[in-house]
């Protein structure tokens, strides 16, 4: 009998058991429950349960981000319902439309701690694994039920370890690595599994890069992603909160279902082609594809280091004619940083449209939707048919460097020629 993985340990802890095994169904009490613009619909479900107020308002975090500011009367009414619900229930951790994308806001505001269990009505809730938390997406009814009972069932998954080693090639970013892995393993490559990212490349990676890895773990079917916390994690967390936490790590002799190794020393920049995230090609195979819109932002790649890379490429240049570049800083903190460091000014001068922090057109709800026949190159995490509001448009996914370079040329471009 080997040791335990992080996921087995935390699910045992949160269900009050000494130990659990994969396949077991446990009832846990989460530390944080996330919902966003969908909180209006969730509040309606909650009311159907027939109780008056939420059981534990301090565990609930609600940032508005999916369609901010409201694009129509319907969206406005949706936000209004949420604001009223939040007030009636004494929910303190509510972040209105001036804050940013939930997966950026939760860590920034100190809600994400190593060794905690976070569930959210959003599939990219996996992001918080970058901080050593267990975090997974759930549905609307489940959030309503947790609001009422403080409990939910989870099945203990097997864990797959992905070891990323080698030397980071020039012009290759965490986005390229995760796209490459998704391309290799497929959209169901780690279906229902917990995934641990490790190896020297992950150890050397910034927190922002680790967030990109864990964010997209769900695109290959993972239940949760995880990076073992280190000094960088602790430093990042301690800057934002003085709440106490306990780091949970996998045992060195933990039982993994599989250990997969990738040496990325020779990796080329990668790009996901329409209409699935696992349709991944090396950049060299798609260079020259005409684009109409370029998008830098979202919970995958809207952080300050992403905007910095774009700025480096776009500095003193103008984007191509007939090409649009939309930039969505992931949060107000990122927005202010980018403003203070002059990044926004550079981007605007290059022809970019700076949008307010939020999910933007990633899910096709508003702002920057596509027309039939158009092509968008985006730093987001999904390119499904119809994703950006039009089922006759195409979406490619790549790193901020590639998106910025491609905006300059009006076609898919290898960014390495623009980087120093």
């Amino acid at each position: 009998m080997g040791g335990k993985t992080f996921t087995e340990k935390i699910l045992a802890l949160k269900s009050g058991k000494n130990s659990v095994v994969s396949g077991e169904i446990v009832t846990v009490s989460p530390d944080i429950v996330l919902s966003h613009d969908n909180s209006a619909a969730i509040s309606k479900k909650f009311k159907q349960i027939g109780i008056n107020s939420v059981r534990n308002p301090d565990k609930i975090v609600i940032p508005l981000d999916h369609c901010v500011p409201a694009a129509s009367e319907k969206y406005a009414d949706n936000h209004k319902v949420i604001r009223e619900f939040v007030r009636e229930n004494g929910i303190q951790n509510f972040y209105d439309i001036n804050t940013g994308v939930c997966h950026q806001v939760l860590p920034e505001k100190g809600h994400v701690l190593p060794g905690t269990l976070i569930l959210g009505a959003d599939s990219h809730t996996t992001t918080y694994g970058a901080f050593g938390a267990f975090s997974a997406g759930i549905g609307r009814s489940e959030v309503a039920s947790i609001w009422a009972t403080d409990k939910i069932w989870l099945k203990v998954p097997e864990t797959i370890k992905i070891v990323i080693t080698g030397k980071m090639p020039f012009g290759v970013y965490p986005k390229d690595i995760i796209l490459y892995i998704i391309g290799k393993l497929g959209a169901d490559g780690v279906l229902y599994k917990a995934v641990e990212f490790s190896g020297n490349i992950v150890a050397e990676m910034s927190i922002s890069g680790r967030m990109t890895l864990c964010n997209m773990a769900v695109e290959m079917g993972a239940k949760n992603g995880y990076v073992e916390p280190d000094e960088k994690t602790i430093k990042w967390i301690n800057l934002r909160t003085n709440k106490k936490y306990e780091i949970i790590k996998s045992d060195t002799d933990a039982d993994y279902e599989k250990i997969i190794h990738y040496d990325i020393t020779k990796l080329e920049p990668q790009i996901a082609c329409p209409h699935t995230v696992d349709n991944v090609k090396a950049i060299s195979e798609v260079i020259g594809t005409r684009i109409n819109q370029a998008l830098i932002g979202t919970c995958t790649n809207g952080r300050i280091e992403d905007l910095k890379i774009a700025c480096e490429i776009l500095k003193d240049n103008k984007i191509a004619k007939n090409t649009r570049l939309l930039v969505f800083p992931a949060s107000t903190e990122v927005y202010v940083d980018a403003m203070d460091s002059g990044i926004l000014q550079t981007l605007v001068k290059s022809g970019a449209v700076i949008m307010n922090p939020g999910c933007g057109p990633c899910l096709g709800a508003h702002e920057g939707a596509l027309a039939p026949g158009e092509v968008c190159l985006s730093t987001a995490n999904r390119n499904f048919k119809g994703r950006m509001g039009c089922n006759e448009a195409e979406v490619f996914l790549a790193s901020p460097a590639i998106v910025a370079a491609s905006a300059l040329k009006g076609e898919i471009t290898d960014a390495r020629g623009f980087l120093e």
Partner: protein
Amino acid sequence: MSIIGKVWKYGDDINTDVIFPGKYTYTVSDPHEMAVHALEDLDSEFSDKVHKNDVIIAGENFGCGSSREQAATCLKYAGVGAIIAKSFSRIFFRNAINQALPVIDCKEAADHIETGDKVEINFEKGEIYWKEKVFAFKPLPEEILDIFNDGGLIPHTKRLLKMKKGEK
């Protein structure tokens, strides 16, 4: 409980964006209206041609992508009686149970059965009847079956809380 229905077959990795497009996620809230958009970006005629208790058959990873529960709700209200797939994306699987929409993992059935075929499913026995064949599937674990039998997670939670109150 058992159902008899006609089969609609699709491929692997059917994602929630094609089942229920993101552009409707905050503007369509009535489940009957959701049903009109079911599978809109995969098979635009689906909501017209589907009948009560029809069965969707699919390949691997059905329901991947977004956590939107409407993907399960729209299929349920469109009349879908069950989904048989080689595998399901985990959030969709949970959402379906929480909406009391039967989801069945059965590779063999997914391989053999085609669009237009008639199938019968017996949920208690865990059996799918097709032509002369019977495919077996593992019924859901008891604690999850409870949610299903209560008509979904919201009525289930309501019942549990009432029971708890009664004990006091």
